[in-house]
């Protein structure tokens, strides 16, 4: 029997993914909208039919019905039962599995307290803020002591401060949790702060899997690069990665290495922190962060032709690795 999660799963036309995760580890699943993240989660939870296998501690989940999988799922948008109090929502799982009411409520109370909302036990979901409701949803999933915890975009819809606080707290709870956690997110920050490993899903396939450092430093695809906020340029057997801050924009052809020079029309201009992020349709698409003053001086409006360049010392080159662990043969 192998401990942990071992997945080779196929949902026709949606997802084909092979990957594994150690017990006690957090695997972040990132990818653009429509990449199949939620499909993967629902298939693992038993809410969607899938072929292949998903062995958890040696047992194939796909052979079990949803209720027998002992998987904790925190839904996107929480999906707390609106007619039940926070306490009854959390006690629902143990009660459904035959735990006596008093014991179930005791366990529910403990989990609510552990998540810092013990005093809100009597409230209905509509009387809770987004962050509070998300805590209840997490407590509801964890109280059943699942062997696999699935978190589907747990921070979506929360305001930035609340999301950050919850992120830190969730990271603490997950560190103490000995099952496997899959955290679906489209924020690179979740992957980089909480996860032990990151799986990048793109068009239903595993585009890259590795430690947060590997993925953020050496993204294998433009999509991954964009998710972690990097530019990446593919050149036969090497990839060249550089930050948007390292990119210089000019209206005339810059000097320097021709390999680190691109030309194209401005596609989008948007504020990014104190800077202005400029997306240029060069080949490939590149992003550059410039000061607002520079943006005004260059007259950066969509359609304007610009040159981009980056210094040799500001780029990182690495081999495109065809034998990536975790990628699926189509």
């Amino acid at each position, binding site marked *: 029997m192998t401990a942990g999660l071992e997945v080779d799963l196929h949902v026709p036309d949606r997802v084909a993914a092979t990957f594994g995760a150690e017990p006690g580890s957090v695997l972040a699943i990132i990818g653009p909208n429509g990449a199949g993240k939620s499909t993967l989660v629902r298939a693992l*939870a*038993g*809410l969607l039919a899938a072929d292949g296998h998903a062995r958890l501690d040696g047992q194939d989940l796909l052979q079990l*019905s*949803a*209720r*027998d*999988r*002992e*998987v*904790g*799922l925190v*839904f996107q948008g929480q*999906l*707390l*039962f*609106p*007619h039940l109090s926070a306490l009854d929502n959390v006690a*629902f*799982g143990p009660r*459904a*599995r035959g735990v006596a009411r008093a014991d179930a409520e005791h366990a529910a109370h403990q989990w609510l307290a552990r998540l810092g909302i013990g005093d809100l036990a009597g409230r*209905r*979901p*509509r009387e809770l803020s987004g962050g509070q409701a998300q805590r209840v949803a997490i407590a*509801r999933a964890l109280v*059943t002591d699942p062997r696999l915890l699935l978190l589907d975009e747990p921070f979506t819809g929360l305001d930035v401060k609340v999301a950050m606080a919850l992120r830190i707290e969730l990271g603490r709870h997950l560190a103490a949790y000995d099952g496997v956690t899959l955290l679906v997110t489209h924020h690179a920050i979740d992957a980089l702060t909480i996860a032990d490993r990151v799986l990048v899903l793109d068009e239903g396939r595993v585009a890259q899997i590795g430690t947060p450092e590997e993925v953020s430093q050496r993204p294998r695809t433009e999509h991954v690069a964009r998710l972690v906020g990097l530019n990446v340029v593919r050149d036969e057997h090497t990839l060249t990665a550089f930050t948007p801050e390292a990119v210089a924009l000019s209206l005339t052809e810059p000097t320097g290495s021709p390999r680190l020079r691109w030309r194209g029309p401005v596609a989008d201009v948007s504020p990014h922190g104190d800077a202005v992020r400029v997306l240029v349709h060069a080949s490939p698409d590149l992003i550059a962060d410039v000061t607002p003053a520079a943006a005004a001086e260059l007259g950066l409006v969509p359609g304007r032709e610009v040159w981009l360049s980056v210094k040799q010392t500001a780029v990182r080159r690495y081999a495109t690795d065809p034998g990536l662990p975790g990628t699926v043969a189509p």
Partner: protein
Amino acid sequence: MSVRVRDPLGRPPALLMLPAAVAVLLLVVPLVAMVAATDLRGLPEQLRSEPLREALWLSVLTSTVATLFCLLLGLPLAWVLARLQFRGRTLLRALVTVPLVLPPVVAGVALRTAFGRTGVLGEPLLELTGFSFPFTTWGVVLAHVFVALPFVVLAIEGAFRSADPEYDAAAATLGASRWTAFRRVTVPLALPGIAAGLVLGWARSLGEFGATITFNGNYPGVTQTMPNLIYVTRQSDQDAALALSLVMLVVSVGTLLVLHDRWLGTPGVRA
């Protein structure tokens, strides 16, 4: 009904306002006329009459028992229609809906063919148990269930549909069986709609006349419900028929108020 003089979108067109006003008159005038024509002084005496009390009691009793059966049979059927994917579901729903549009007299004839002493179900039932539905109070209940069940099923199906099936999914991941999810999630979420459906069914059976009289005749104390009584009284005593009708009007309006409360007094429980 107040129409603002200066509607920013312009005056409401007379082509719509006029027919609307006629519709209101058409719906209100008969009821007002009926109340106006009723001899209110003679009403207490009418209310004490034995046939009225018997018929009213029988109506309330049979409608309530019929509604109970509608709940026991209709709730599961509504769930099947709302939650299960299967071939022929559309056909099944169409079959369920037929009694809704069927003339009640035809319903009575159909019931007679099935449950009469020589009916396909009635004959074996009679041989096995010695019991036969027609001309009994149970026959009245059966007729009521037949005409009210479609209302109840469709109303509750709608309520189940608006209770997001994702909650069932959430319940399943928490280890709940489908029965547990039904009992603890689906039904509570659909409760206002279920209550509305039952009140609707109750009102439908209270007013049921055609199927009941065709299937069961009109025997005081056994099968003579309020509508039946009003029908026969109308032929001999106009004033008594008016008084009886007023009683039914009061009961119906009372039902409507309950329905209104259920629908508007309990806003959607979904967060």
